[in-house]
């Protein structure tokens, strides 16, 4: 029996193979020849694309995991239970890409464990390192039952609910801390980070923006999986998620607007500078366009409309993080940093690996809300493709 896969199978496979080939080449350059050969980083620009994309975006876009786990297990919002596994798998893979990205980004990656034993409690990065380390462990444990179910280890699976609520609470605390502290990393760049982005409220802004972006990723993943795996999901959850996203985006916009104006940022909004353009692109994509789109019932009511709205939100979110990491530091650095192609290649390869892993999880594990349709088997011969029953 033929196993259904992506529609344009060969095109996608070739593309993925090309990305991996480029990534592999760039990896060799990075570790055999060093930063000079593989990046355009410099003393004026010590942090670039890898921090901006792999770390800041990677962690932020994984925020759906803790948000939905909290909604279901702590707030008892049962209607989100069908997507809790989807969100946790996304978060788990997201954090793995962050750790993988770190290995490229660190100058001495074989010492990545040093923060475990060498402490500096006054360092924001130290706190981030610990939180990411612990949360990656927590989200891995949250992911376990899905794996145990597939492997057929019922005893471990039965043991899991006893620690689940503890895991979720710890996960929410750790996530809140390090999502904020990623913004907190830039508090020390006062005088360097352009005023449209520098704010004492950076931690709160990073936290507030990560949740809607993380939820948007969940919507995207559900839509793409439904399409490529030809499965039929209950899409009312996406609509409810988009409502929450809209509220959170409005809250973020309000908070950021008040913060900016109260710090005298008004004049910067209209200056004829590149930063002004980057700022409006970012808030246009992340806040205004999605909020306008979500007012239309046609958009809210269609999976495709919600998918594209989520894509725009994710792009806007990435624009925000890349602006903080790169564009807002341009003026003070005094040099222009454009990432080398090898930097893009490695970032893209790491992200693609996560997407491929997610696809494998989608095929082999039960991570989706699937409508009960016993007459038509959803994934063909794949054994795990039974109708979804919520995991308790």
């Amino acid at each position: 029996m033929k196993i259904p896969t992506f529609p344009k199978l060969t095109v996608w496979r070739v593309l993925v193979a090309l990305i991996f080939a480029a990534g592999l080449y760039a990896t060799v350059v990075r570790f055999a020849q060093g930063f000079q050969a593989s990046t355009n980083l410099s003393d004026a620009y010590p942090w670039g694309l890898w921090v901006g994309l792999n770390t800041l975006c990677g962690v932020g876009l994984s925020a759906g995991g803790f948000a939905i786990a909290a909604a279901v297990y702590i707030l008892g919002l049962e209607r989100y239970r069908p997507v809790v596994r989807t969100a946790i798998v996304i978060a788990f893979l997201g954090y793995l890409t962050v750790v993988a990205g770190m290995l490229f980004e660190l100058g001495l990656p074989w010492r990545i464990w040093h923060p475990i034993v060498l402490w500096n409690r006054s360092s924001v990065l130290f706190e981030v390192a610990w939180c990411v380390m612990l949360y990656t462990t927590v989200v891995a444990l949250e992911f376990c039952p899905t794996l145990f179910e597939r492997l057929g280890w019922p005893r471990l699976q039965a043991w899991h609910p006893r620690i689940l609520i503890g895991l979720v609470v710890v996960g929410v605390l750790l996530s809140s801390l390090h999502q904020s502290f990623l913004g907190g990393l830039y508090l020390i760049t006062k005088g360097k980070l352009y005023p449209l982005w520098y704010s004492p409220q950076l931690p709160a802004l990073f936290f507030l923006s990560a949740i809607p972006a993380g939820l948007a990723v969940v919507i995207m993943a559900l839509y793409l999986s439904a399409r490529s795996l030809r499965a039929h999901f209950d899409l009312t959850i996406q609509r409810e998620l988009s409502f929450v996203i809209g509220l959170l985006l409005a809250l973020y916009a309000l908070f950021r607007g008040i913060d900016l104006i109260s710090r005298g940022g008004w004049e910067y909004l209209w200056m004829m500078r590149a930063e002004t353009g980057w700022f409006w692109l970012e808030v246009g994509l992340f806040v205004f366009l999605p909020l306008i789109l979500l007012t239309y019932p046609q958009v809210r009511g269609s999976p495709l409309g919600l998918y594209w709205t989520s894509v725009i939100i994710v792009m806007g979110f990435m624009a925000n993080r890349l602006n903080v990491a790169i564009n807002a530091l341009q003026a003070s650095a005094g040099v222009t940093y454009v990432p080398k192609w090898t930097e893009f290649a490695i970032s893209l390869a790491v992200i693609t690996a996560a997407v491929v892993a997610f696809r494998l999880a989608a095929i082999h594990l039960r991570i989706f809300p699937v409508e009960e349709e016993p007459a038509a088997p959803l994934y063909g011969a794949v054994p795990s493709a039974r109708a979804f029953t919520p995991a308790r």
Partner: protein
Amino acid sequence: MNNRPKAMLIDITRCIGCHNCDLACKRAHNLPEETEPELSDTSLTVVQERHGRSVRKLCMHCLDPACVSACPVAALQKTPSGPVVYQADRCIGCRYCMLACPFQVPRYEWTRLAPYVKKCDLCAEKIARGEAPVCVEVCPVGAVQFGEREELLAEARRRIAENPAYVQRILGEEEAGGTSVLFLSDVPFEKLGFALPPDNRPLRVLTAGPLQEVPTVVTLGSAVLATLYWITRRREEVALAEEEEKHPHPGLPPRARKREVERS
């Protein structure tokens, strides 16, 4: 010498731009002996021509350094005698110190496969032996002096008072909480290519507030989450009990009934 905090006073009006200091520094640190225009991983101090003056650039050795607060593995330390020193064996190569430094000083060995951070160490080993940094020893005109920070500040103030040509400012007296390298000049420092900190507070205070809130966030956060969880459980139980009243289920208390429901 005693153990009081040491410092270095550089008088830009006296410097003749002979480059003895940067070349001696390179000799002392086993770096290739050629003068470079900018600080680099092979040049821990430089003398630049700016506005008709010869201007030293080097690590300012802040009293409360941003790099020391930023480093996640405490590879950078402020020693009581003055130097901000780097323990290479701790470093993970995250380069957060470079992002944090308000004077834009630390440099990185971008060309190496095991790259480390490079910056002036104020010849900490020599200071520990009671000697002056090598750049002080080789200066032929006394443009750079070494001694106790308080005494050097007094000397700097005396020079400013005696000669109105000086800018009325000792760079490093208060910037970013004060530094162990002090500059005097007759040309405004802004024109001499100095990267200057945003204000006179140590940059550590910018992150100290949020970091102090961690225990509060954890304590309050877990309390709030636990309460919410309790409410959720209670609501479930109440709902089950109501269900029970409507459709009595003989023999099982509500709690066991719920487990039964979950299992089925």
